[in-house]
């Protein structure tokens, strides 16, 4: 396969997030650039959260997937700036999340007001099961750093909400 950006993006679209396997790393918006030189291919990724344990796994997965297509000289580089935001998540990714049972981020990050009011929660988060918007925050911190835990007041289903970040 020829080493061009289109082909490489195609390969990266097969690498999934190990924690949320319905999302590819392109859906997540963490691939920040590809640089092709004579010697190697440099793939730039940015962490979602500083402590996300998936990042190390993702870097290894990228190298393995590239290897499957015969690219042996691959460097995965971490870039921090600009900081990742859920605004970079693709529309397709958000739909996949919902189908998987995780409510996707509902706001743009610049509309987010974490410190506006204490004890205030993001309202009207849609239940991925019954689509009711009568839902309540159980905990701002869910099964992973990027998710909060909600419960639907109508169908009673507890569900993860991918926090706006």
């Amino acid at each position, binding site marked *: 396969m020829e080493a061009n950006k289109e082909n490489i993006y195609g390969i990266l679209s097969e690498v999934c997030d190990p924690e949320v396997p319905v999302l590819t790393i392109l859906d997540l918006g963490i691939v920040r650039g590809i640089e092709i030189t004579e010697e190697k291919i440099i793939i730039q990724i940015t*962490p979602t*959260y*500083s*402590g*996300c*344990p998936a990042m190390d796994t993702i870097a290894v997965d990228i190298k393995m997937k590239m290897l499957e297509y015969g690219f042996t000289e691959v460097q995965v580089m971490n870039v*921090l*700036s*600009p*900081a*990742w935001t859920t605004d970079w998540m693709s529309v397709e990714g958000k739909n996949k999340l919902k189908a998987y049972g995780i409510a996707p981020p509902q706001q743009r990050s610049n509309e987010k007001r*974490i*410190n506006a009011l*204490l*004890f205030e929660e993001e309202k009207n988060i849609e239940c991925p099961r019954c689509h009711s918007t009568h839902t309540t925050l*159980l*905990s*701002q*911190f*869910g*099964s*992973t*750093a990027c998710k909060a*835990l909600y419960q639907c007041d109508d169908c009673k289903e507890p569900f993860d909400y991918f926090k706006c*970040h």
Partner: protein
Amino acid sequence: MQTQPTIDYALHLADSALILGQRNGEWCAHGPILEQDIAITNITLDLIGQSRLFYQYAAACMNESGTAEATEDTLAYLRTERSFKNLLMCELPNGDWAQTVLRQFFFSQFQLLLLEQLQHAGNEQYAAIAAKSIKETQYHVKWSSEWVIRLGDGTAESHEKMENAVNALWMYTGEFFIAADYEAVDVAALKNKWMEAVTAIFEEATLSMPENTFMQTGGKTGTHTEHLGYILSELQYLQRTYPGAEW
């Protein structure tokens, strides 16, 4: 090439985040309820992640300047307590839940103000780490503020526990604002804003602000409480016993 103060400052920021993370991690599977157990360990994960970014930067600077060969792991696992530069508050035992959440509130509120300034301290890497971390710290401030209010303005017993926590921790807050010579942010200038924020939450929590009292110092320059050695012996045990061991 970066100078020694830059390396020391990165180590200071990394050490505080690592040691507080290590302390909070002791709550794992011991939290008061499952959701809060998960919350405090999520915060811990953010702190450890932030410490890694600062250690990686410190290691890169050290390797580049030829002062020492370092990696994020050697910096966390192979330094002794006198070379750790964390704030004393971070190494204190967890105490009860009131003390843990109050410490998180004091620390996170300070960290938030610090990171805001660190974005404009004239160092690109500091700025990038700060911009990344600040988004996480905002959640920590909100979560810990709510807990201080919930317990302070809760029952007679929870109020008393929170007051005890204030009395136990207050003397470790002064150190935040006394600059070590390597600091790139003017921490003394953050004091008023921090006091304002704490006063507002304490009012809501029906807690009284402590009188001016003796303040402990020393953490930033390696003079620690007796607790740090015990933390490090647990944290570093594996790497010291089986050098270079990997998962």
